[in-house]
């Protein structure tokens, strides 16, 4: 059999975004792969050096467009460290609840794309349908479906609307029933197991060496979850279990993500209970003026100038739906951050394809890469 290189991308149904997987195949067997990124490199780190801190939040939504609130959370944690600001507790609970709802939405998006790669057409629509319910919730308190601009340095933009908690409870209750349906559609199908079991195996030591994080690492049996290991925000106040699997394959990643959604529902319910009982402010008092009110008058931006403010640096690592995301923010005392650097879990997870793809068949690429949960926006930034 002759060998040939096949380009899968940048326009290819498998990629779910703009990236290119160069595959060297011999017959149907994959010999080598070479992921190529950068087709969506939008220079977010460079633009951030020219923006006020609260303006960067706008970019964060677009960095990872399926998990906007998680990335807002990521940047806010780092920026608050760099700027020495402490948010009120209610804002932290709202952030955690938003991040967990976002995790469910992101995993539902992943579920839709993943089953579509397998050729399952119906669950794709079911996943999108149920994801829209969560987006409706977001819309009710942030105003946006994908891009929210909701979190602020020092808190969140606005409090939850009246009746939100009841509505949210209804939605998550409904979702818990749907998760059962999803499992029926996938796990009860023999073909699903034929397609997914034992594919894309990446065992824990290799996953650690290659820097793979998130559900991919936890499917290999690792219990590494930053929400437990280094609790940020109020994750030390809520009860949840770390979802793990032992098979380290596509089915394992499916099981981990499904369980994570259930655990997220658990966290959301606890947050809702807390929020019901503890009304209060959602923005920190005594914010420096240059951090500004959320709605600044146009034209007069002199008050945004920052004078004699202490410098600082912040590093935040959070458990984003795709894996561990990091933000490194350098505050040199100016009104813009001096340097912003993000760690994208997706970039590393895709890059490790060199390790977990060879040896399988061309037809296995869609399920395996689908199980990685690719979001090119955060990968290329």
């Amino acid at each position, binding site marked *: 059999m002759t060998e040939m290189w096949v380009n899968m991308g940048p326009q*290819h149904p498998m990629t779910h975004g*703009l990236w290119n997987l160069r595959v060297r195949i011999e017959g149907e067997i994959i010999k080598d792969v070479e992921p190529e990124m950068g087709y*969506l490199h*939008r220079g977010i780190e460079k*633009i951030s050096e020219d923006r006020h801190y609260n303006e960067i939040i706008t970019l964060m939504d677009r960095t990872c*467009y399926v998990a906007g609130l998680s990335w807002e959370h990521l940047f806010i944690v780092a920026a608050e460290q760099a700027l020495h600001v402490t948010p009120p507790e209610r804002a932290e609970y709202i952030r955690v609840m938003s991040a967990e709802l976002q995790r469910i939405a992101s995993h539902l998006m992943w579920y839709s794309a993943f089953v579509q790669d397998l050729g399952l057409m119906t669950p794709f629509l079911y996943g999108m349908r149920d994801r829209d319910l969560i987006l409706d919730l977001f819309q009710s308190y942030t105003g946006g479906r994908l891009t929210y601009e909701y979190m602020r340095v020092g808190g969140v933009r606005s409090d939850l609307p009246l009746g939100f908690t009841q509505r949210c409870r209804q939605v998550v209750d409904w979702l818990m029933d749907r998760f059962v349906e999803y499992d029926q559609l996938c796990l009860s199908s023999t073909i699903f197991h034929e397609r997914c079991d034992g594919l894309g195996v990446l065992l824990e030591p290799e996953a650690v060496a290659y820097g793979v994080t998130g559900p991919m690492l936890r499917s290999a049996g690792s219990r590494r979850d930053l929400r437990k290991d280094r609790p940020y925000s109020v994750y030390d106040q809520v009860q949840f279990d770390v979802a793990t699997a032992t098979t380290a394959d596509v089915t394992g990643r499916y099981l981990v993500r499904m369980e994570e959604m259930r655990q997220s529902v658990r966290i959301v319910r606890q947050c809702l209970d807390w929020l019901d009982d503890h009304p209060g402010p959602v923005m920190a008092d005594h914010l420096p003026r240059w951090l500004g009110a959320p709605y600044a008058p146009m034209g007069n931006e002199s008050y945004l100038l920052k004078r004699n403010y202490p410098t600082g640096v912040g590093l935040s690592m959070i458990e984003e739906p795709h894996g561990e995301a990091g933000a490194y923010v350098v505050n040199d005392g100016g009104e813009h951050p001096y340097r912003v650097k993000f760690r994208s879990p997706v970039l590393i997870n895709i890059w490790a394809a060199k390790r977990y793809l060879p040896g399988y068949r061309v037809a296995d690429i869609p399920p395996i890469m689908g199980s990685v949960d690719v979001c090119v926006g955060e990968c290329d930034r």
Partner: protein
Amino acid sequence: MSGQAPETSKPLPRTTPDSTPAGDLPLAVVGQPGVPFVEIETLRAREFIPAAKEALSSLLKEQAQGKLIRPVFNWAGRNSLFPLHWGLACCAIEFAAAFGARWDAERFGVVPRSSPRQCDLLIVNGTVTWKVAHKLIALYEQMPEPKWAIAMGNCATGGGPFRTAYSVVPGVDKLIPVDVYIAGCPPRPENMLDGILRLEQLIKERGE
């Protein structure tokens, strides 16, 4: 299937040009056993031929002016827009949501296809970088005529929030001709459907 003229119960009317003028021929049809015998009214050939000629020439004239077939094809073209199935950035998520159960773009005959050869519509749903620019142009060129392009969202329209970035094309109309711009960052699925319906309106008005 016999090729022979079969025997019938009725005598066959013999017709010759001598006995009756050509225009008044009584019409007789050979039948087959089990086949109902059919008679139809006499046609007057002297009137029929000029009338048919006139109708045909007027049809041809209308066809030459594009009044006959073109509206049909225009109707077909605007009601069956197949967009290319590819996602660039944030808008691609809303693009996918528009094909979900709640919005269901297939109601309007919009079905995404993965091969550019089978598409009529390039929806640029996201930020275009210089690195992908020539691939976008190639995809557009691979699509057979007639084809249309929609710039979906602020990034495709004019660079959006990344307008100042070093790697971003400030507006996809610098690369390919765009028919409809959809504002929004990202546009909601309703906006996308609205854009497609406006494109349909545009095709109708242009009469392509």
